[in-house]
């Protein structure tokens, strides 16, 4: 991201050209100021009036140019932010699936909202301002040069000293900006938790407790902000001091020079005016540069958040024959103990696999491993003899489709939610909705707020319709029956088992009359997984379910 810090370059260039043009025009006006003054001093009334007319014309011209400038500036901002935000999402989408942890979600969000806003405010706008200020400074230098070349040398020395000073003084500000970013993050996380837990907080009347923590978080944000303000005040003060020293040394020197060289009063006024015009921008120069440098840390954060380990996977696959777990220990990265040990399992093309076990036994762990959300602690999983972590990710993922208990419903129509924006025939969408018993829903009905307007059962069935509609080789079912009524679950299982697909069904709900339709049944218990062919054994564990 840091490479793209300047935003949309073509628009930036156009803006720069425009700025230079604008500034030259105002430089011409300042020159005319000298002319009119000298005419005035010589009491040439006619020439004064003639020059005044020209000056007015230039003023009108500059109004038109200013308005064009506004259009160009806004175009630059728009183009840059579009480019940067889209690039961010693009990079995010390129992340490896093992990197997409849910806890990063808030960081990404904060990057794409807060941090981009700050970047626009404190960097992009400041680039334009810096260009403007530099052009005015250069114009002043040119004007001064028409009076004396020595003054120009002094002016350049000013510039050099500025650059040196600004690069040295902004360190403390940078540090505290980073600190502020961190406390803002903690604040955002807390707010997010509160909003998601709203019902529970209300129900158990935890408002007071949460309120206190909120104040604590908010106070920390403002305290850090205060620290930023304090350190930047000191920096600004120091910079101001240096600047004022330089500027007034220059002005006094210029005036003394003009006095001894008997330069015309018009020239003197011209020099003073152009310096008057540069004065304010120059005072802004240092804080602006400080701000810009401070905010670049944000881009570095972006890069850090979006960085990923280089994934060295080259093997291509295009079909699915056999997936094998070869004595694998499965578990989570941050937990040294594996959840399942010595897993031996094989899935062949078009096989129907059932994995059963108690809640928390580790059934989902198997699926997460297949989906590469977690890496085996020991041993490897192979697809047709190839380690699945050697296969080009996109080849691998496109073999699978998952139906799970959480499910991702996005703000869009039913149809879009089923097809995931892929180009799929409407009839096929209807068929799959019919298959899962959702034929009463309109394809165009809009789902909002993560599916708040569909019930739990409808949600699970939508997920399933999606899986049926999309053409993946293997369907992974993760507890899909848990929020469905028995008759619907029963008929859905029957439909799934009749599909010409490989099915891996993880469930604690089973139907006795379907058990014989599975090719293999695995039981997960006490950290182990084993295959069984004894339907009676499976059935005897399930006391309650009846078809």
């Amino acid at each position, binding site marked *: 991201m840091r490479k793209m810090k300047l935003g949309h370059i073509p628009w930036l260039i156009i803006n720069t050209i425009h700025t230079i043009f604008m500034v030259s025009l105002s430089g011409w006006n300042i020159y005319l100021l000298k002319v009119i003054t000298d005419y005035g001093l010589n009491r040439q009334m006619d020439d004064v009036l003639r020059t005044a007319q020209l000056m007015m014309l230039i003023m009108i011209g500059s109004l038109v140019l200013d308005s064009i400038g506004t259009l160009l500036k806004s175009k630059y901002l728009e183009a840059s932010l*579009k480019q940067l935000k889209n690039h961010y999402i693009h990079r995010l989408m390129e992340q490896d699936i093992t990197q997409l942890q849910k806890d990063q979600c808030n960081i990404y969000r904060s990057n794409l*909202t807060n941090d981009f806003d700050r970047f626009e405010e404190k960097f992009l706008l400041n680039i334009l301002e810096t260009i403007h200020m530099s052009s005015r400074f250069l114009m002043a230098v040119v004007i001064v040069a028409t009076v004396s070349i020595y003054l120009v040398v002094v002016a350049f020395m000013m510039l050099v000293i500025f650059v040196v000073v600004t690069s040295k003084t902004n360190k403390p500000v940078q540090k505290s900006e980073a600190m502020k970013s961190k406390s803002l993050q903690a604040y955002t996380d807390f707010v997010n938790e509160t909003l998601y837990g709203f019902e529970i907080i209300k129900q158990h009347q935890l408002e007071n407790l949460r309120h206190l923590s909120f104040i604590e978080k908010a106070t920390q944000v403002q305290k850090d902000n205060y620290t930023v303000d304090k350190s930047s005040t000191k920096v600004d*003060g120091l910079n101001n001091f240096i600047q004022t020293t330089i500027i007034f040394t220059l002005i006094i020197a210029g005036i003394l020079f003009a006095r001894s060289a008997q330069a015309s009063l018009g020239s003197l006024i011209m020099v003073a005016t152009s310096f008057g015009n540069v004065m304010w921008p120059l005072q802004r120069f240092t804080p602006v540069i400080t701000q810009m440098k401070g905010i670049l840390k944000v881009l570095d954060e972006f890069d850090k958040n979006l960085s990923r380990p280089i994934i060295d996977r080259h093997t291509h696959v295009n079909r699915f024959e056999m997936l094998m777990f070869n004595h694998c220990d499965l578990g*989570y990265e941050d*937990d040294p103990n594996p959840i399942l040990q010595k897993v031996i399992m094989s899935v062949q093309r078009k096989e129907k696999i059932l994995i059963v076990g108690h*809640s928390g036994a580790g059934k989902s762990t198997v699926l997460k491993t297949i989906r590469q959300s977690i890496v085996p602690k020991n041993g490897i999983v192979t697809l047709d003899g190839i380690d699945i972590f050697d296969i080009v990710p996109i080849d691998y993922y496109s073999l699978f489709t998952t139906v799970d208990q959480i499910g991702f419903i996005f703000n869009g129509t039913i149809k879009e939610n089923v097809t995931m924006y892929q180009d799929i025939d409407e009839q096929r969408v209807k068929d799959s909705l019919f298959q899962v018993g959702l034929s009463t829903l309109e394809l165009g009905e809009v789902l909002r707020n993560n599916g708040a307007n569909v019930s739990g059962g409808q949600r699970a069935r939508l997920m399933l319709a999606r899986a049926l509609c999309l053409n993946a080789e293997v369907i992974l079912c993760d507890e899909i029956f848990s929020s469905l009524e028995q008759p619907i679950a029963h008929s859905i299982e029957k439909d799934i088992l009749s599909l010409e697909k490989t099915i891996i069904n993880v469930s604690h709900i089973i139907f006795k009359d379907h058990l014989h339709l599975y090719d293999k049944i695995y039981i997960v218990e006490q950290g182990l997984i084993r295959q069984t062919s004894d339907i009676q054994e499976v059935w005897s564990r399930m006391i309650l379910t009846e078809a």
Partner: protein
Amino acid sequence: MTLIQLLKKNKKQLTLYLIGAFMTTISGLFFTFALSNAFGIIEEVDTTGILRRIAIVLFFAFTPIFTQMLSRFLRIGFMRDILIQVRTLAYEKIMTHSYESFKKNPKEHYMSMLVSDINLFEKDFFLSFLNIIYSFGSFILGSIVLLFISPLVALATLIVSIILFTVTKLFEPIARKTKRQTQEANADYNVQLTNILNGMEVIKLYHVEENFKRPFESIVITLENIKKRAFRIDELQSNLNHWIAGTFQMLVYIYATYLYIQNGITLTSLILLFNLIGQLVWSMISGFNFINRFKTSIDIYNRITQTQSNPKAVQQLTFKEKLSVKKLSFSYTDKKILEDLNFTIKPKDKVLIVGPSGAGKTTLLNCLAQNLSSYEGEIIIDNHELKTIQTESFLKTCGYIRQQHFLFNDSIKNNVILASPYNKEKFDKVMQDVDLSDWIDTLSTKEDHILEQDGLNISGGQRQRISIARELYHDREVLFVDEPSASLDDQTAQHIYDTLLSLDKTLICVSHRHLDYLSKHFDTKIELKTLGAST
């Protein structure tokens, strides 16, 4: 609390802030003095005169640096205090929502109130407040000086100020409108982000990154477009003002030159006049610009902090005789969910609500649990309509196990006991009731095990059981239960049902599974049907 009340509450800091703000007004004037005195050097004849002038120039040039630093230190404390309070007020506003009114907006809406809107307020309010004080302060000071040099120019300046003011006024409504549009576009953008960020793994799995990039890109286009419009309007106004001011400055200078030719004024006055006019008009412009920003920031403040007072329910809940539901109906916008329900529940009854998915089981539970109040018909508990019963008192009696389980980023223990005192015996009993004891024993930190990010590191069944344990621990007289066994295997589910049924409480439970078993053990069964559908 209105903004004025908030400022009054912080009188001491406000005073310091105002002192600091007024201090800045002299800096512009001092600068003009420094400059005109520098020109005075030309008129000096001897070295002592020149040195005296230089001393004066240095005094006027360097004083503002120190006053500005001092001023900033006086101001930032106030900024910190006010922002902490504004954040708190905005947070309080959100938390005063009832379950029902909270649900009316997506979470992103509240999120952006507490994040981007406050940032906007922080950015605009203080900056514009300071600049208004600075601009009008230095305008008044400058005008006084100007009156001594040329009353006619002083009068003209006043007229130009009025013109500038009119321009600003004309732009005001449209500026406010675009600001509001920007906020709305920001909220939409947030919604889209939630989509993409929450679904990232699924999006990857289905390999539809490109398809999700498109809607994201189009919302970015919309957002940036609206921002562009807002930016243009801001800039257009400021350009116009600058142009008026610049032209006026030129005219004054031409006029002053004319006066000089006519021997009306001296050379020094000419220079001072030129600089002073510049300073006055520019500060006027920035002052007017900031008035609009100031107003919009106050709009934001009002939007994020002002609460409408809800009528307070006063009745205390007692549930000794019966809960009766009469002619209960409920619709979401245009969709009728419940129609004409009638039933009665007595204390300690075990009630089972069944029906196909989409039939309104959860909706009925939400009506009974005081989460939805926009129902038609009556729900009467011991002679009092449910709507008139105080929420606090209702919650002391009723617990609710929801279908969506939420876990705090905290230990298992704290997730169960929440704000109640810890009773180890009771806690252990509850954990046994939900079959979690064995699991807890395997954890190195036992019940102090931290659940991260809404329970990301545990299974769905464990999440569900912790939620159930939470309600069991709080031991309410009436327990509403929505699908307690959804993510559980049958053995665990049966154990939990047994536990729930063995409680000496009123139990109102929604389920679609294990119906044969449950029908035998519950006293009452309420069957719901899907309305207006063929199933």
